[in-house]
């Protein structure tokens, strides 16, 4: 039977590499025991936490609903409401409970509207929860700051705006985004002023979130965004184009026509799409002149515009493009030709290279 001393002797006589392997075995054995215990403790803690969170959330939700329905007709706080606030206060001693309280408040606020939503907001202030969020703005951790900004924007806390303004152009994109959303959420279109000085890219995701906030407001009066259409930041121009389209800023037609000369292909394409929706025929003439030197994607966008603005004078142009290398352009050119002049279409059928398109159009 091997005893421990025998093992020590064996170890000392082994080559270095074998000694290292045995050390590795011992270390890993203990690490395995540690991670196995971790796993069990973790699962137990997760279950405990989830049970606690469920319990505390139910409590908060009950208090909040009771609070909403126990108000006085004269808008003064009732005794019962004061009692509920005291009860909730007593639960806000831990970070987890405060977090769950905020989540419950946000959830309820999103589900209701009008005076009840305002009442929830008032409750947030009365519980003095904003102080924690404002304190978190000083954190070194970007994640904590971003969550704090989000909370403050959800409850329309304007007093933090000067602090949050410092993050509008922060190098951490997520933080800058939350700051921008804060300003838009609180100040509507005025909150978009950061676009005047933005030098980094406003991604499509950022634009979607900004637009989503803007569409929540009753006042849908977009300010003049000419300056944004002239921005040197291409992403700002693209966002301004989207705003122009969604808010039907037809008065910006001339500004958008100028963008047909913009060096960025994406901007030219988006400009064409808007002008096509608005059926701006001047765009057609400008684009025809530039057509031959344009990229295929811009040419394709032009043909989409042509679908809304074509006329008999376009027949030679359509015939010229009936054998374009792009399938979409070929199809659109022949389709429009058939619509505007059947005789020309029949003539072109003989010389069209893509017989599939011509057969399809002839049949349908």
């Amino acid at each position, binding site marked *: 039977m091997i005893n421990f001393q025998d093992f020590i002797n064996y170890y000392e006589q082994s080559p270095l590499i074998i000694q290292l392997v045995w050390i590795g075995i011992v270390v890993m054995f203990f690490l395995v025991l540690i991670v196995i215990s971790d796993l069990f403790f973790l699962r137990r803690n997760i279950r405990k936490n989830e049970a606690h969170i469920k319990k505390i959330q139910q409590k908060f939700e009950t208090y909040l609903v009771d609070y909403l329905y126990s108000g006085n007709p004269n808008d003064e706080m009732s005794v019962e409401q004061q009692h509920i606030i005291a009860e909730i206060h007593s639960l806000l001693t831990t970070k987890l409970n405060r977090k769950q309280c905020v989540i419950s408040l946000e959830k309820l606020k999103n589900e209701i509207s009008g005076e009840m939503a305002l009442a929830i907001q008032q409750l947030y202030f009365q519980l003095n929860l904003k102080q924690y969020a404002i304190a978190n703005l000083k954190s070194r951790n970007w994640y904590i700051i971003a969550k704090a900004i989000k909370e403050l924007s959800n409850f329309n806390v304007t007093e933090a705006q000067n602090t949050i303004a410092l993050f509008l152009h922060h190098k951490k994109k997520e933080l800058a985004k939350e700051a921008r959303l804060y300003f838009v959420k609180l100040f509507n279109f005025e909150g978009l002023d950061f676009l005047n000085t933005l030098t980094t890219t406003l991604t*499509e995701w950022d634009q979607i979130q900004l637009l989503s906030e803007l569409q929540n407001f009753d006042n849908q009066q977009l300010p003049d965004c000419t300056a944004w259409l002239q921005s040197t930041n291409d992403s700002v121009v693209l966002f301004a184009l989207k705003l122009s389209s969604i808010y039907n800023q037809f008065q910006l037609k001339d500004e958008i026509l100028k963008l047909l000369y913009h060096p960025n292909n994406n901007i030219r394409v988006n400009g064409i799409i808007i002008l096509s929706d608005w059926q701006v025929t001047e765009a057609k003439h400008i684009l025809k002149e530039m057509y031959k030197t344009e990229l295929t994607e811009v040419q394709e966008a032009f043909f989409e515009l042509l679908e809304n603005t074509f006329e008999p004078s376009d027949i030679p142009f359509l015939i010229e493009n009936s054998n374009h290398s792009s399938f979409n352009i070929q199809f659109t050119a022949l389709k429009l030709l058939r619509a505007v002049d059947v005789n020309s279409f029949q003539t072109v059928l003989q010389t069209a290279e893509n017989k599939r398109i011509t057969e399809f159009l002839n049949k349908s």
Partner: protein
Amino acid sequence: MDTVTVNIILETIKWLFLIYGLSVIGSYIILGIISTAETVEYFKKNSFVNYKDILSSPIAPSISIIAPAYNESLNIVENVRSLLSSHYANYDVIIVNDGSKDDSLEKLIKAYNLEKIDYLVNDQIATKPLRAGVFKSKNPAFEKLIIVDKENGGKADALNMGLNISKSQYVACIDVDCLLMEDALQKMIKPFLEADERKVIATGGVIRIANNCVIREGRLIDVNFPKKNLERAQIIEYIRSFLLGRMAWSRLNGLLVISGAFGMFDKKVAISVGGYDTNTVGEDMEIIVRMRRFMEEQHIKYRVAYIPDPLCWTEAPDNYKIFISQRNRWTRGTIEVLRKHRKLAFNPNYRALGMLSYPYWLFFERLAPIIETIGILYFLMLTFLKEVRWDYTLAFFLVAYLFTILFTIVAILSEELTYNQYKKHGTGFKWILISILEPFVLHPFILYAALRGNFDYYFKKDKKWGTMVRKGLTKKTT
């Protein structure tokens, strides 16, 4: 050959194996650390994202879900219903019935009130021709659905037809019997929309194993740990691979593969490279490598992103025969892709793709089963020559085995800390047990399948996909 030379050779081989083993362990540790950092970062960035914004956005980009189907009559109606229940607004579902010999098309026509439409397909990528044609529903409730019935050409060919048919900016390629979570599309599209200097050309998602889960009417109701060791072992293998592997490659921008079960692509780039290769069984890996190569050669900054969220659930093989067939195919696919794109190997012109990803896949994926087999044969030879030190053998075996268990449990801890999908009591013990057993119930069969894959690749060129017998994800509740 004299004794001294033989000893030198044997000693060299021993050291080479040791270096290789240490490299494998070292790479796992490095990838594990990077993956953890990336997953933590992902969680932080996404914990306060409101995905609902994109659902109602007028500028949400269009997505086509492309799902090839071959003889899926058993569950196709339910599977399509599941795909149609995504919460995303601007999408359509293209089911490509790839020359099925059963009544898949008839069932779909009846269930969704389909009618044949005149449709001119833009043959940007050559495919097998249409058979019955293109169908759409007369019912406005199913306006997002397009059924394409074509001649059989294989999965890649069917996906290419989907690319031709799609009019969307992005395509999500999925196996028709996969269960897609309702918020999958908005989570997968996000990396594309967040891109600034580097264009995102593809996004991959984590595939979860649905065996023994409760699925009703195309929705995941209850997640259960499977009963069979083979299925359990595959779960931990997937978790290890996705949470401690692919997240790291995504961070390093070295991801060479997105699961064929679910991936999203920039359609324009996918078509620019010619779509899926119909001559390989590893078409999911091959298209990613080709798309990356294309972007490198065009000198366009790009990345391939990865989402760790469990967005797609699929059925894993529940018996060894099918498992071996699947892994055989994966091996052949890997060999085909690495051979086809061997120009990338150690080529600095391709940066991380050529200097990091390709060498890693070559040495630690493609050659690993060969080296392991040589190691086993070498060991047997030494045994025969009575040159084996059994105490040393035990030591090396223990260190490798303990490292495997340690790494596996770390992966499980990652899963518990992040998604915690397996909440039920008793699963903790099952996790530990399968971590201990996995090197015996799974790995030998992976090795065998890989060797068969190598053999079939070099000596049975006509072998293609093989058959995955599916039981279907739709199960009754117990």
